[in-house]
């Protein structure tokens, strides 16, 4: 897959060998950071927010508004969008400050491995389909697959594969690309320039990819939840003229 995955240890679960890779451990670290922040910032909620509570309120309110503005009755999707948003924000930027190079690839963004973006994309499409079925019912959801005309059915069905594929590939490609670019730059010019490039490749690009992923997730859910208005039946031309 072109990525540097190291199995740190193995768990034996009922005869199944489960390899715990550095990617999984990095995901746990990212989760730990997020949970610690969430715990500390909401430990004692005050009427007038102070310190970390400000950040928690900004994040929650921004996500609530974002979900509400873009998805029909979207406030309930805010926690999911927040979860993947925060996870990606930490995961994509965890490789900053040359940690990947210094630790010989052990400390790396989890999203640099194909499995993580794929898992996130699959979850997104499953949630989008689930939301669509909940909103329109199973019949309504299946009917949508035949719109705008029946011949579109295979293409609409294909969308459920294309969407998560493009979502995961974009994320993986960007993070992996940034990693490769940084590796090459560090090999070519070890001093000075990589520090500046790191700001773009690790922080800016990581943040941008987080935003893109969350935005597309919102878009996909919104598409599935949306109910198209029935088009008014068009009168035959001669009737319109006579009217």
């Amino acid at each position, binding site marked *: *897959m072109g990525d540097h*995955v190291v*199995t740190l240890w193995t768990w034996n679960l009922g005869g199944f*060998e*489960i*390899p715990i*890779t550095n*990617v*999984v451990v990095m*995901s*746990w670290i990212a*989760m730990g950071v*997020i*949970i610690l922040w*969430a*715990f500390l*910032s*909401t430990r004692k*909620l005050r*009427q007038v927010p102070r310190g970390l509570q400000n950040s*928690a*309120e900004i*994040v*929650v*309110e921004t*996500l*609530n508004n974002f979900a509400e503005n873009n998805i029909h009755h979207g*406030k309930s999707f*805010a*926690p*999911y969008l*927040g*979860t*993947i948003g*925060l*996870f990606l924000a930490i995961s994509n930027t965890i490789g900053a400050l040359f940690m990947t190079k210094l630790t010989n690839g052990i400390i790396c963004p*989890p999203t640099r*491995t*194909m*499995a*993580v973006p*794929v*898992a*996130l994309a*699959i*979850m997104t499409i499953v949630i989008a389909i689930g939301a669509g079925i909940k909103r329109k019912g199973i019949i309504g959801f299946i009917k949508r697959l035949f719109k705008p005309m029946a011949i579109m059915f295979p293409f609409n069905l294909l969308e459920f594969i294309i969407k998560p594929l493009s979502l995961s590939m974009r994320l993986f490609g960007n993070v992996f690309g940034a990693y490769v670019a940084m590796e090459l730059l560090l090999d070519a010019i070890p001093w000075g320039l990589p520090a500046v490039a790191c700001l773009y490749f690790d922080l800016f690009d990581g943040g941008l990819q987080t935003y893109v992923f969350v935005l597309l997730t919102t878009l996909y859910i919104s598409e599935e939840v949306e109910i198209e208005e029935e088009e008014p039946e068009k009168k035959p031309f001669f009737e319109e003229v006579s009217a």
Partner: protein
Amino acid sequence: MELNNEFFVTLGITVLNIVVLFVVLRLLLFKPVTKHIDNRNKKIEDALKAAEESQKMVRQMKVEYDEKIKEAKEEGQKVIEMYRGMAEKEYNGIIDSAKAEADQIIENAKTELKVEKEQLITSMKEELAELVFAASEKVLKKNIDDDTNRKLISEFINEKSVS
């Protein structure tokens, strides 16, 4: 196949991670913070509504007070007018009675003066009669009957004073 195994295990663990993270963040972050923000917004809305109500009440009270002050002023004006009328009546009464009293005093004085004048005239007449009598006595050097002379002189004086 080792890579595939790793891939699917990582994928499965990631899905599990995201589910756990979702549940934890929902319970720890989204629910309490959203509730907290909603409560605060409701409190602010309530406070604003209460302030608006109070302002409306104060405005209403001000209108009422203004009305009352206006009424009180009008009533006060009426009372002042009434008392002014009463005072004027009293004043006129006092002035009239004073005038009447003064007129009475003047009248009395005039009467007294008249009486005194008459008395004075009478005494002067008498004194004059005495004087004339004495003078006549001296002039005539003649002793005449006292009572007859006096009577003559008095009649003479009376005649003169009447004329």
